[in-house]
């Protein structure tokens, strides 16, 4: 029996095994340190991208990678988001604001060395408007003359669509109405050009999901080119030597990681595996704020968190009821005590400062007035007010906000609210068929213009989903705003429309989003902006002196 004592010993040795193994791995250089030396940016990107085809993809992770691989006619200043030359070195706009003539760079090339010219745009935009391709962003083209008609099949000749290559380096685009934000659209990936030869090599132009975007096949025109796509592992892009501005690109390589789990991502950041995270777990934000950790970056984001009200539900048809509900949401309490990520309480639908637009609003936190309004609507002290349901998609933060609002409405209006959470796709279904009473929602702008927020609530707007329809609102947004001459006039029209929207309240704005991420101090020239868009060609890495790895002697 004596020898048996050796067994637990073996057992303990096994437990020690990992510790022994570590000695082999400890002390290695972290991704970040190595990246700082060789110009490799390690980028936490959220999820595995669905597609890298700019005419198919939707979503932020896809956007992050596509904008490294491709470029539009016009780019944006990384700080102010003002349009600046991209593939087009200059452009002119006709006096009526409808005709844009772009002069393309002579030295524009595809990443395989092929010349890149105006004809590429005509072909690419034709492709993007093929319904069979399933392009969810086709509507981004609809300001171009006849693009909508072509897409919907009312005209079949693409020559009638307002895009023409006058010669190899001149592209003329005619719009149906003056569209002040048109230049901005050109920097959205849905309007990026694609390389015809590559697409036709792997399938037909309107075939969805061919292999042209795969590692080894992809051809783009951006500052970087695809060098590896390891599914669910990483996507690596390398500096593109054919890029027109290649000499000024500061990074050699970017590695995008599908960091699905925010908690793991934050740990990766702390362990020096990432230069930048796509998010920060909300319970970690306060401790980063408390310690004034300079890696934490919080900046306003072009998006609104709001509640939709189904205006076809009998007791929610009354404007008074909707206003009473909106006046009893304590937005300050929600952003300060629940979200804690610098979010801005929203008293109008369009985020303030969108292209110089600051919406006026008569919304505020005012329980007293709310009670009077509810009484006027026939529900004195909440009496006989039917139990109402808030629908939200399963998510801890949505739940917390819904619980808080449930309590606020109970406390201030004495009405009963039920909470219903549904899994994402079920929730989408319920909302789109109007099977809800009040539902949580979010809207992130694709371009910086109030139109991107306000045209949602046109009577036939696909994203309206509230059943609210107002002829005057449609007239202002659909007919007047596109035709006014000056920027100030346009903003005034939006202001009137928004006032109408906030008067009728088919939606209750709650807060304006912020983008929250962790960024390593070595990352330079990466300013924040409200689209949270990175201009990779300008970023470079430079380790702070104190962050430089110690030399052997210093150990």
């Amino acid at each position, binding site marked *: *029996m*004596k*020898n*048996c004592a050796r*067994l*637990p010993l*073996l*057992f303990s040795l*096994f*437990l020690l095994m*990992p*510790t022994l193994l*570590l000695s*082999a*791995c*400890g002390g*290695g250089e972290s*991704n970040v340190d190595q990246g700082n030396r060789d110009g490799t940016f390690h980028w936490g990107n959220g999820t*595995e991208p*669905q*597609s890298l*085809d700019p005419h198919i993809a*939707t979503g932020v992770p896809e956007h992050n990678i596509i904008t490294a691989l491709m470029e539009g006619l016009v780019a944006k200043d990384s700080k102010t988001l003002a349009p600046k030359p991209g593939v087009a070195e200059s452009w002119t706009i006709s006096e009526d604001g409808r005709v844009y003539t772009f002069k393309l760079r002579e030295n524009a090339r595809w990443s395989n060395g092929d010349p890149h010219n105006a004809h590429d745009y005509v072909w690419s935009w034709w492709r993007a408007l093929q*319904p*069979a391709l*399933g*392009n*969810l962003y*086709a509507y981004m083209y609809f300001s171009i003359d006849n693009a909508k008609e072509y*897409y*919907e*099949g009312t005209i079949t000749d693409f020559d009638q669509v307002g895009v023409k290559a006058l010669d190899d380096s001149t592209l003329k685009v005619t719009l149906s109405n003056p569209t002040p934000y048109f230049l901005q659209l050109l920097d959205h990936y849905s309007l990026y050009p694609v390389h015809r030869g590559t697409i036709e090599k792997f399938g037909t132009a309107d075939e*969805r*999901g061919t*292999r042209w*975007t795969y590692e080894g096949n992809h051809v783009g025109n951006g500052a970087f080119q695809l060098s590896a796509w*390891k*599914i*669910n*592992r990483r996507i690596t892009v390398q500096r593109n030597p054919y890029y027109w501005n290649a000499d000024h690109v500061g990074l050699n390589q970017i590695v995008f*990681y599908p960091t*699905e*789990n925010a*908690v*793991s991502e934050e*740990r*990766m950041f*702390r*362990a020096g*595996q990432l230069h930048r995270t796509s998010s920060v777990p909300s319970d970690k934000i306060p401790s980063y704020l408390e310690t004034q950790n300079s890696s934490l970056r919080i900046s306003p984001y072009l998006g609104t968190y709001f509640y939709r009200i189904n205006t076809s539900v009998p007791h929610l048809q009354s404007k008074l009821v909707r206003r009473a509900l909106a006046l009893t949401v304590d937005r300050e309490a929600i952003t300060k005590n629940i979200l804690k990520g610098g979010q801005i309480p929203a008293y109008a639908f369009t985020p303030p400062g969108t292209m110089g637009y600051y919406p006026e609003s008569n919304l505020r936190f005012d329980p007293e007035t709310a009670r009077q309004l509810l009484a006027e609507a026939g529900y004195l002290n909440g009496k006989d007010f039917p139990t109402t349901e808030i629908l939200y998609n399963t998510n801890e933060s949505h739940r917390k906000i819904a619980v808080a609002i449930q309590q606020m409405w109970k406390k201030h209006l004495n009405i009963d609210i039920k909470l219903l959470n549904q899994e*994402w*796709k079920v*929730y*989408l*279904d319920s909302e*789109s068929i109007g099977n809800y009473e009040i539902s949580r929602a*979010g809207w992130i702008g694709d371009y910086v213009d109030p139109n991107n927020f306000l045209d949602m609530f046109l009577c036939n707007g*696909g*994203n309206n*989903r509230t059943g609210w329809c107002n002829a005057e609102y449609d007239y202002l947004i659909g007919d007047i705003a596109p035709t006014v001459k000056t920027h100030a006039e346009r903003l005034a029209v939006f202001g009137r429309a928004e006032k109408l929207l906030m008067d009728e309240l088919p939606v209750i704005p709650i807060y304006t989003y912020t983008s929250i991420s962790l960024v390593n101090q070595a990352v330079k020239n990466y300013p924040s902006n409200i689209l949270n868009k990175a201009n990779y060609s300008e970023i470079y890495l430079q380790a702070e002196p104190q962050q430089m790895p110690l030399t052997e002697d210093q150990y």
Partner: protein
Amino acid sequence: MFRFAFYRLLQAIPVLFIVISLTFMLVHSAPGGPFSADKAVPPEVIKALEAQYNLDQPLWQQYVSYVGDVLQGDFGPSFKYPGRDVTELIAAGLPATAELALYAMLVALVIGVSAGVAAAMRPNTAQDYIPMSAAMIGICMPSFLLGPLLVLIFGIHLEWLPVSGWGDIPGDKILPAITLGTGYAAYIARLSRGGMLEVLSQDYIRTARAKGLSEPVVVAKHALRGGLIPVIAFLGPAFAGLLGGSFVVETVFQIPGLGRFYVQAAFNRDYTMILGTTVFFSTLIIIFNLLSDMLAIWLNPKLRQQTRGASL
């Protein structure tokens, strides 16, 4: 033995057929479609997409063509990732998942068997109580707790091991394997303790001891073979469970495995991906169960007799 295997494989055909049919019905009856999105999808796009993936056909027709394709080994294209086939995605995720399952199994076996055997050597002493209590904790501790805990200790505080990744940085496979293997180690420890206790009280062990053999020889040469039969029987389902159940560990450690695809497919309503991975995992479970049954029969003369009798 071969006849046994043959019959078992024959039984697997209707099982797989039922799995396909049930899953097909379930995914198609789940609310929310594969192409619904936050932003309104124009009807033209929905129509084009449905036509492309044959979703515009009657359901029975879709079913027939799907089964036809599966019989030819084609799981179809993924709805979520245009341009990727389900087979391709399974092939991309399987190596990491299989490797993780294998290492986790090794961790489970080494820790589990040594702890179980040690406990059985001296039942009702500290040598029994300590590993068995640890095993109980191991069974109770979910991997979504153990994983981050190990990462905090070994990854963040001690900086000994990478906090995530798979095959990128030396040592990044250690923590995931331990996290996934621990729960199974605990279970195996209890099984092997039970098995060993039963065997150690048998007459032939007393004979071996009476012959004057040393205790390690008695345990290693005579007792282990019989004592580990419950463990062997558990290995098949355990390995299948490790393969299919690694989702949490894959997420915590950012491992590019199949588990993440499997779970995400359900959320995305990626019909073909859900079906493909379900059929794939079902096949694996059937195969591993068969293999562990065959191993158990090979090790246990009693069962060998029975099978022979049954197949005659």
